[in-house]
C-alpha cells in the first residue's frame, strides 16, 4: 500500500494509468451490468411468452380431447391421456426440454378412478405447492419458476405452467408443463461471459493505449529531468534533444538556451577566478626568492648589530622583525590562495591531540614577550588519538591560542579537550575584552580585526582565524566562535576522529559553561 502511494506520488505515468483504469473499469461495469440485465430480461420474457402460448395450446387440446372422450372406456381415456403426455413431452436433445405432469386435484374430485400420469423423467413431487394451490383456486392458467427434480436425480431450474382440467365424469385434475431452463441459463451464461471478456479486453486495450500516449508525453519530461540532474551535478554540456515542433520542443529550446547561458557564465567566472588565483599564487612565489635574500642579508647585518651605532643597530632589529612579519603574511596569503583554488590537500596521519595541544601551549608559555597569561589545559584523558593533518591542526591551535592571549588582558586562558566516540572538541576560552554581536559575525573574515587600535602582540597577519576555519573544514570539522563584550571569547574546534568523516555532535557547546545569561544582563 505504501509502495503504491509512493509510486503514485513519484510517477506521473502510474498516476494517469491508474486513474484511467479505474475510471474505465467503472464505466465498463456500469454498461456491462445494464446490458446484461436487459439481455437476460429479454431472453426470459421471450421464452416465458412462448412457454405460455405452448401451454395454452396443450391445455386447450387436452381439455378438448377429454370432452370428446366422454363415453369412451376407461382404458381408452387413459390411452388418450398417455398420448397427450407423450406428445407434450419432447425427447429431442436440442429442443427446450419439456415434461408433463397430470395430477388429480385433492379437493373437488370424489371419483375413485385416477387418471394421474406424468412423463417418465420427472418426479411428480417437484411441482411447487404454492403453484398447485393457485391452480386449484383459479380457472386461469398459472405459472411459476421453481426447481424440477428428475428421476435421474438431476435437479434444474424450470418454469412450471399449470391449469385446471376437468375430466367429464372423472372429476377435477391439474395439468402441469415443466419447461427446463437449462438452455436459457446456458444462453444467459454465454451472454454474461461474452460481456465479461469484452469488458476485460477493453480494459486492457485502454490501459495500453493510455500507456502509449503517456509515453510520448512523459518520456521527454523524464529526459528533461535526467538532463537537468546531470546539469546540476556539474556536467554543463548536457542538452535536450529537439525532434519535433510541439510544446515539448519549446520547453527543450528554452531549457537549452538557459543551459548554454549558464555554461557561458560559469566558464567565464571559472576563468576569472583561475586567472585571479594564478596571479596571487605567482606573486607569492615570485616574492619568495627576494625575500630569502632579504632575510639572509638582514640576518648578517643583525648579527653584527653590536658593532653599529644605536640607530643603525635598532634599524637592523626592526628590519629583521618586519621581514619576519612580511614572510608570515606571504605564507598566509599563499595558504589562502590554495584554499581559494581548492588545491589544499589534507595529509592525514595518526596523531595524539593532547600531545599536540600541550606542545603548542608550551610554545606560548610564560616568559614569552608579553602578557604573562597562563594557559590551563583541562582534559580527562591522557591521550586522544585521531587521524588528522598534523600541520593544519597545529596551525589552528596556534592561531586560537595566539588570538586568545592577544585578547586575554592578562587573565588566564583555559583550553578544554573533550572526546566522544566520533569526534574530539577543543575549546579555547579567554576572559578578556570579548566580542560583541557584530564582531562575532566577522571574526572569521580575512584581515578583520576586533579592535584596530589594539596593540598586536603576536604580529598576527589578520588571516589566522580565516585559515583556521578553512583548515577545520578541510577535515570536515567545524570552528565556532562565541563572545560577549568584556566577558571574553570562546572558540571551539570540533574535528571528526577520522578526518573526512562527518561530525555527529558538538562535545563542547559553544556557549561556555561558566557564562550565565541572567548574570550578564543584571
Amino acid at each position, binding site marked *: 500500500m505504501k509502495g503504491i502511494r509512493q509510486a503514485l506520488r513519484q510517477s506521473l505515468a502510474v498516476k494517469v494509468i491508474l486513474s484511467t483504469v479505474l475510471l474505465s473499469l467503472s464505466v465498463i461495469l456500469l454498461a456491462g451490468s445494464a446490458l446484461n440485465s436487459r439481455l437476460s430480461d429479454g431472453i426470459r420474457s421471450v421464452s416465458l411468452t412462448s412457454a405460455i402460448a405452448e401451454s395454452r395450446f396443450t391445455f386447450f387440446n387436452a381439455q378438448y380431447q377429454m370432452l370428446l372422450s366422454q363415453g369412451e372406456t376407461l382404458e381408452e381415456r387413459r390411452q388418450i391421456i398417455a398420448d397427450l403426455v407423450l406428445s407434450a413431452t419432447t425427447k429431442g436433445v436440442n429442443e427446450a426440454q419439456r415434461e408433463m405432469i397430470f395430477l388429480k386435484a385433492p379437493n373437488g374430485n370424489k371419483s375413485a378412478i385416477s387418471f394421474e400420469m406424468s412423463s417418465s423423467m420427472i418426479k411428480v413431487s417437484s411441482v411447487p405447492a404454492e403453484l398447485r394451490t393457485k391452480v386449484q383456486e383459479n380457472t386461469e392458467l398459472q405459472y411459476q419458476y421453481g426447481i424440477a427434480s428428475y428421476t435421474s436425480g438431476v435437479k434444474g431450474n424450470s418454469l412450471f405452467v399449470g391449469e385446471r382440467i376437468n375430466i367429464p365424469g372423472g372429476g377435477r385434475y391439474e395439468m402441469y408443463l415443466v419447461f427446463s431452463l437449462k438452455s436459457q441459463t446456458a444462453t444467459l451464461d454465454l451472454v454474461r461471459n461474452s460481456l465479461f471478456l469484452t469488458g476485460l479486453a477493453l480494459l486492457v486495450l485502454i490501459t495500453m493505449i493510455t500507456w502509449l500516449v503517456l509515453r510520448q508525453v512523459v518520456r521527454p519530461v523524464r529526459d528533461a529531468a535526467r538532463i537537468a540532474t546531470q546539469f546540476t551535478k556539474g556536467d554543463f554540456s548536457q542538452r535536450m534533444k529537439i525532434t519535433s515542433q510541439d510544446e515539448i520542443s519549446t520547453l527543450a529550446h528554452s531549457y537549452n538556451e538557459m543551459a548554454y547561458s549558464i555554461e557561458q557564465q560559469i566558464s567565464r567566472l571559472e576563468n576569472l577566478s583561475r586567472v585571479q588565483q594564478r596571479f596571487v599564487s605567482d606573486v607569492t*612565489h615570485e616574492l*619568495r*626568492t*627576494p*625575500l*630569502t*635574500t632579504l*632575510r*639572509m*642579508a638582514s*640576518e*648578517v647585518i643583525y648579527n653584527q648589530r653590536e658593532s653599529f651605532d644605536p640607530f643603525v643597530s635598532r634599524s637592523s632589529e626592526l628590519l629583521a622583525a618586519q621581514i619576519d612579519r612580511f*614572510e608570515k603574511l606571504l605564507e598566509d596569503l*599563499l595558504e589562502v590562495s590554495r584554499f581559494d583554488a581548492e588545491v589544499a*590537500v589534507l595529509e592525514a*596521519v*595518526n596523531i595524539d591531540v593532547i600531545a599536540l595541544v600541550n606542545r603548542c601551549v608550551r610554545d606560548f608559555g610564560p616568559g614569552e614577550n608579553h602578557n604573562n597569561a597562563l594557559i590551563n589545559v583541562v582534559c580527562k584523558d591522557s591521550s586522544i588519538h585521531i587521524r588528522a593533518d598534523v600541520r593544519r591542526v597545529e596551525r589552528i591551535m596556534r592561531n586560537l591560542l595566539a588570538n586568545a592571549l592577544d585578547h586575554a588582558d592578562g587573565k588566564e586562558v583555559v583550553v578544554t579537550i573533550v572526546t566522544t566516540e566520533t569526534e574530539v572538541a577543543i575549546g579555547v576560552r579567554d576572559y578578556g575584552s570579548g566580542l560583541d554581536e557584530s564582531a562575532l559575525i566577522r571574526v572569521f573574515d580575512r584581515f578583520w580585526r576586533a579592535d584596530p587600535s589594539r596593540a598586536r602582540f603576536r604580529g598576527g597577519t589578520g588571516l589566522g582565524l580565516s585559515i583556521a576555519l578553512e583548515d577545520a573544514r578541510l577535515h570536515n570539522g567545524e570552528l565556532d566562535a562565541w563572545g560577549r563584550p568584556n566577558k571574553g571569547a570562546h572558540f571551539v574546534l570540533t574535528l571528526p576522529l577520522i578526518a573526512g568523516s562527518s561530525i555527529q555532535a558538538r562535545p563542547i557547546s559553544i556557549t561556555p559553561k561558566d557564562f550565565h545569561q541572567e548574570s550578564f544582563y543584571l
Partner: protein
Amino acid sequence: MTLVMVVDDDQDLAEMLGIVLTGSGFDVDLVNRGDEVLEVFRNNPPDLVLLDVMLPGIDGIEVCRLIRLESMVPIVMLSAKGETQDIVRGLEAGADDYIQKPFRDKAELIARIRTRLRRTNADVVGILAIGDLSIDVTAHEVHRGTTLIQLTRLEFDLLVALAKDPGRVFTRDALLSEVWGYRHSTDTRLVNVHVQRLRSKVEHEPENPEIVMTVRGVGYKAGGPA
C-alpha cells in the same frame, strides 16, 4: 676546505648564499644556469650541491638526475614552490633533502648542509649483514656477493641506520631525526621517497621487499640475514 656548489638563477640570492656559506667556513662555487652545472661539476667536483628547482637552460630536477648519473654527492634542493609534487619530483630525481625558500634562518640552512656532509653513523664500524647484503661501514661499501651496489651517502646512511639495529622498528619520525637530523618531524614524504629509491637499488623485487621491510602503520625495519 669543503666545497659547496650553489646553483640558483637569482644572482643576488646566490651571492647572498655565498656570503653566508663563506661566513660559515665553506668554499663556494656559484652557478646561475642549469646547463652550466655539469661542466663546472666535472672540473671542480664539490662536496655538496645546493640546487634551485627553477633554472634557465635545464631545470633543477633534470640537473639533479644528470648529476646522479655520475656522482653520489649529497644534493639539497632549494624550492620556492612549497607544492607537494615539486618536492616529491626532486626527491625522486635523486635529491637527498630539500629546503623551502624562504628559510627560517641561516642556521637552518647551515645545519642541513652540515648534516648531509657529516657521517651520521660514526659510532658504527665493521661489517653489517642485512638480508643477503653485506655492508662495509668503514669502507662505505655495500656488496651483494661480489657485486658492488652504488648508493648515495644518504641511502647508505639510511641502510646502516636500519641494519645496525636489526629487529627494531623505526618510525618515520625516528628515521628523520637519525638520518636527516631533523629535531622534530616535518615531512615524512622524505622518508617514503628515499625508502622507495633504496629498495629499487638493493631489493630483488622492490614490490616485495626483503631488506627494507614496511611495518604497517608504524614504519620500517631491516629484514633478517639470509
